[in-house]
């Protein structure tokens, strides 16, 4: 059992990690401690360096600068097959010349596990990722995109690694299956106490699954924190926008010029989440016309035409407002968050 005491070394300790490809700084001075048994999610726009980071952690690529410790041990020179880690590749990288079962049991075969034991374990893993058992002897080339993703998942799990890396593993799955596997993965992680490092584009996924989230931008880790902090107290406008749709108002001289109202700070920007806007509410109020309405199940999102430009509001689906309606909207300054940049 890994040592999870308070003074235990972190599962992974990254210090000043950088990776350049020619002039591109794909990874720029990333320092981070990933705790033992943690579900750590990395999010960021396309090309922000997420895959590069994961490849370095897995030993598939070398950093141009910086150090990497696994439980206090320097693993910079350790090849991937000597690291107690496994990765679910963004490209999946399935072995097309092998059957589903052979793919899943590959790590076991490399360790010299016998054919019978490999089969048993592979079937268990197929159950776990909800693939029918008779897929065991099928060529992977005959699997659908989502099925292939689950094979890749099972293949990485088979090696029973101490740390698991996931590079957008659920992106090709339909909504329900993704939800099921999200819960499944989270359960698995809780049950086994393994450390998971997870990349996703889906904020919902990040919010639901993670203990902590790290936001990447242009190769840098701009903010690390638990989901509530990242969502509620983003460090800057970039993080706020990245974590969902927001309304951003400039603060100048202690006031909000957009509404000619007092602001909670001298300067910077005020972040107002769509759910903070409501009709006839709050201490900052303004006239608005509803231009578009999008139904999101139990909630509706609407675009408002106001003197401050187009704003986004999110209300319960029970709202009576319809497209074209004029109303007085507002928000409470206490429900907002101010960032400096």
């Amino acid at each position, binding site marked *: 059992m890994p040592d999870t005491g308070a003074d235990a070394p972190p599962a992974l300790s990254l210090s000043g990690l950088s990776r350049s490809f020619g002039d591109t700084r794909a990874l720029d001075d990333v320092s981070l401690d990933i705790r033992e048994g943690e579900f750590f999610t990395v999010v960021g726009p396309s090309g922000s360096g997420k895959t590069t980071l994961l490849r370095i952690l*897995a*030993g*598939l690529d070398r950093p141009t600068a910086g150090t990497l410790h696994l439980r206090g041990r320097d693993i910079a020179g350790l*090849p*991937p*097959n000597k690291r107690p*880690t*496994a*990765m679910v*590749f963004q*490209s999946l*990288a*399935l*072995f097309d*010349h092998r059957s589903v079962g052979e793919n899943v049991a*590959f*790590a076991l*075969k*490399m*360790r010299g596990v016998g054919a019978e034991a490999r089969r048993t374990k592979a079937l268990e893993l197929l159950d776990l990722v909800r693939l029918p058992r008779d897929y065991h002897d099928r060529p992977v080339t005959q699997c659908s995109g989502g099925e292939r993703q689950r094979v890749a998942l099972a*293949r*990485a799990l*088979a*090696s029973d690694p101490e740390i698991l890396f996931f590079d957008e593993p659920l992106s090709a799955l339909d909504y329900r299956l993704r939800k099921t596997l999200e819960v499944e993965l989270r359960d698995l992680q809780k049950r086994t106490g393994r450390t998971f490092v997870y990349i996703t584009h889906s904020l919902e996924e990040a919010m639901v699954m993670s203990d902590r989230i790290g936001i990447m931008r242009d190769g840098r880790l701009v903010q690390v924190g638990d989901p509530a902090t990242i969502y509620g107290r983003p460090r800057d406008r970039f993080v706020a926008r990245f974590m969902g749709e927001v309304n951003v108002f400039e603060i100048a001289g202690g006031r909000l010029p957009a509404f000619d109202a007092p602001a909670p700070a001298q300067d910077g920007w005020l972040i107002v989440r769509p759910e903070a806007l409501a009709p006839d509410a709050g201490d900052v109020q303004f006239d608005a016309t509803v231009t578009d309405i999008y139904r999101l199940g139990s909630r509706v999102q609407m675009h408002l035409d106001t003197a401050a430009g187009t704003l986004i509001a999110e209300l319960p689906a029970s709202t009576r407002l319809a497209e074209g309606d004029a109303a007085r909207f507002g928000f409470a300054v206490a429900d907002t968050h101010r960032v400096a940049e």
Partner: protein
Amino acid sequence: MRPGPLFALPVAVFLAVGFAMPILIVAWYSLMAPRTFDLTTVFTLANYRAAFTEGYGQPFFWSLGLAALTTLTCLLIAWPTAKVLHAHAGRVATIATALVALPIFVSESVRLFGLSLFLMPGGGIFAGSMRALFGVSIGTILNTKFAVYLGMVYIHLPFMLFPVLLGVALIPPDRVEAARDLGAGRWQVLREIELPLALPGLVIGSLLTFVLCIGANAEAAILGGRAITVVTTAIEQRFNYAQDWPMGAALTMLMIAVTAAVVFPALARVDLNRLIRR
């Protein structure tokens, strides 16, 4: 316009006239009485019986053995070479590949005579240089079986290298990474991932080399002196000096049979489409 069966007509005609007909005639001759020149309907198996009883085993053995050994050697040389060339794709690799391809455009006998000159004792380029520069006198491998083997490898390496290069290009790098990540060492990666994925290239290269080697006789003639008689030389002698066409034809048919026995099972094992489509 969609290519229909009509498009296959030119090649079908060519194959019928240039390939099927000659083989048919040779097969017919092989069933004629020894030392006759007429194609009749009086068939005999005398030539085939002679092929197995009158000392043709040696040439067959040498041709097949040399072909197998040469193919294996070329494969062992071509694999790491192709890996390096593929990994360092760019100007240097292009030049290196061109240098490997260049000898194909020079007549085989010219190259073999060059090699023979290089290896000649006393005044040969290698021995001469050694004596002039370092004052050492060395013997020569010219006119030995080893020289023939060396010449065979030298001549046929390009025919192996290019298909193997194609094969190596079929290996997606992320598969190798995934295997490494899942705990495979370098040899395991080679056996489990690289060789199976590159197989079409390896099989094509091996078949090409093997078949060319079976038909080769210049190496033995120019570099081997009288050390080896290969089967093609034996066949040539039957047709020319001995004026025994039926015997030569029978040996030819046996050679074709042996080659087919090697080629077809090997071809059946690879998916040629993979090599063409990517």
